[in-house]
């Protein structure tokens, strides 16, 4: 794979209602170590995620859920992305996600789900394989 001049830009975001930041902080560090540009935010409403994604012109959105919210918020984010013709922005989801929710998230257009315990190497490799 050839080195792109511009690094891959990833928005990592989580709801302020969910107090678990450890996973996303860890992923942010791993992506930065891998040479990606990371924008890290928190939000109250799903609209804020899409707004930041547009402003920052990111290639990837990573959403983290450890205390629920994954189905409602992801569905909203996917709908808003489609509405703004941003379907080329890749969305990945991580956290405490139930097995039976994974196919549903993929059906919404999520590219891949990384449940808790996934290695950061896996996440880095996946993003590179899709956007590198």
């Amino acid at each position: 794979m050839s080195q792109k001049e511009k690094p891959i830009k990833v928005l990592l975001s989580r709801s302020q209602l969910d107090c678990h930041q450890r996973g996303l902080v860890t992923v942010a560090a791993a992506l930065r170590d891998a040479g990606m540009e990371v924008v890290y935010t928190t939000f109250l409403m799903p609209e804020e995620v899409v707004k930041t994604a547009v402003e920052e012109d990111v290639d990837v959105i990573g959403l983290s859920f450890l205390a629920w919210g994954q189905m409602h918020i992801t569905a909203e984010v996917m709908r808003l992305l489609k509405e703004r013709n941003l379907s080329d922005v890749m969305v990945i989801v991580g956290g405490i996600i139930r097995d039976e929710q994974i196919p549903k998230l993929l059906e919404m257009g999520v590219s891949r789900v990384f449940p808790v315990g996934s290695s950061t190497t896996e996440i880095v490799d996946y993003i590179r394989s899709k956007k590198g």
Partner: protein
Amino acid sequence: MFDKATREKVKQIKEEWKQEYQKRYDDKEFNSTTYSGIPVKPVYTPEDIEHLDYKEIGMPGIFPYTRGLYPVGYRAQPWVSQQATGYGLPEQTRERYELLAKEGLRGYEGREPPYFTGQDQAGMLGYDADHPVAKGWVGMTGPSVSTFEDFELLFEGVDISNRNLVLGVFDTSPVFLAWLVMLAEKRGVPLDKLHGLSLNSFFRQMYLEHPSFPPSSALKINREFIKYCTENLPYWNTVNFNMYDIIECGGNAIQELAFILSVVIALVEECMKVGLDPNVFVTRFNFHMAGHMDFFETIAKIRALRRMWAKLARNRFGCTNPRALKAIINVKTAGATYTRQQPLNNLIRGCIETLAAVLADVNALWTTHYDDPLAIPTEQAAILGLRTQQIILYETGIPNVSDPLAGSYYVEWLTSRIEEEATKLLQRIEQMGGWVKCLEAGWFRKEIDRGAIEWRRKVDKGETIVVGMNKFVMREEQKVPVFEYPEVEDIAIERVKKFKEKRDIALTRAALAELKEAAQRVDRGESGLLMPAVIKCAKADATLGEIMDVLKEVFGWGLIT
């Protein structure tokens, strides 16, 4: 600790050991470190603790309480089982909790089992169920509680005068307490008959990325909260100093102790400024620690906290009341050590972590359910958490003897070592300006995040082994039942709307306006005004969100980092 003859003998036998060592291993070294990075040798001897004064170890129930708070440990008073759980509507949470009570949840001697309640994620941040931000979150990881009617449902049929009540909420603690006061008055229960605890982690931005009041405002609000409780609810525990989440978010045992003690110092000094007597209000503090997988470090840090606290309360706050010198400690087994992979393995982790807490004579215990990385517990998982404690209590004989590991060269050395390191770190925090300054600068989070990132790197490289996650991985995962949330959002929203429709809105508005004025005066330095004004709002049918909005407006609200 030891006389000259013993020391000579130790030296002599150690010399023999050294020869054996060299014969067998040559110059090979077997050093390691604890979870918190304290270097550990392969064996400990009296030499490692000979500098210790026996008074530092002492006896249970005797200052500095290293060995426990009472002359006899669990033989006289077994630990309180403080399992928590919650979801859906208030009545659903209550049913789940009463199931645990029926299955043998233990309270303090002579009292009914505890009753541990909380609220959902939206409520924790002061949003009513009908707020747009709450959409998708209602009844998740806690019951939806927006109004006094919801609160009343949570306690329907619960004898509030004979149970240890835990109001498991953070910045909404003043509102929950106001509702409890209303409920007690309605039922004719005198306020001095209320026993329990507000979790009240007003300081959680030091480890969590979770909106809150700015630290200097949080201190003022809690000074008010403590003043009200001291004067009206003498048996109400006002703050649970949460150290658990420090290690849970990536910190270590030394940070657990030093970071939290810096909060305690800030709060005690704030309370003393308005003339509150530490000999009284300090007796109502609790500490919440993590039972972690580093077995001996868990035991040592619990013993070290009791000793550090006793010295701090006496030497720094000038406390003389023995109750003020005793750190009441409740332990929860560490959710972050549990894995989604092979989830049944978590039953074993929970058992080991519970055992460490028991061996360190803690006062209350919450064994995290094995399915924690999957969801909130199923009934079966919740009961298994409780059974873990019951098996240790009734079948092992371990609780027969107080602080049974006292005198272990390793445990005593490690206890002292953790105390020394934590004392040094606490001094550093104070040199940097103390809790408020360090929190505002984002220093705590930076330290804790570094730990989280470092841990993950080690796991990804295989330097730290987590069974089932990065070693002994199975392709076919164990299938276990996962809790299904009931759909409650519509019902919860409907309840809030109905509550708002039938109230006298003029009365509510007037009370909220009064609260705003009281909060502004408290913010300017007056004291004793906030809780009465919150209670007045609660009685005037203001909702959780309405009361919290006023407090947020006056005191500020948001994320620090």
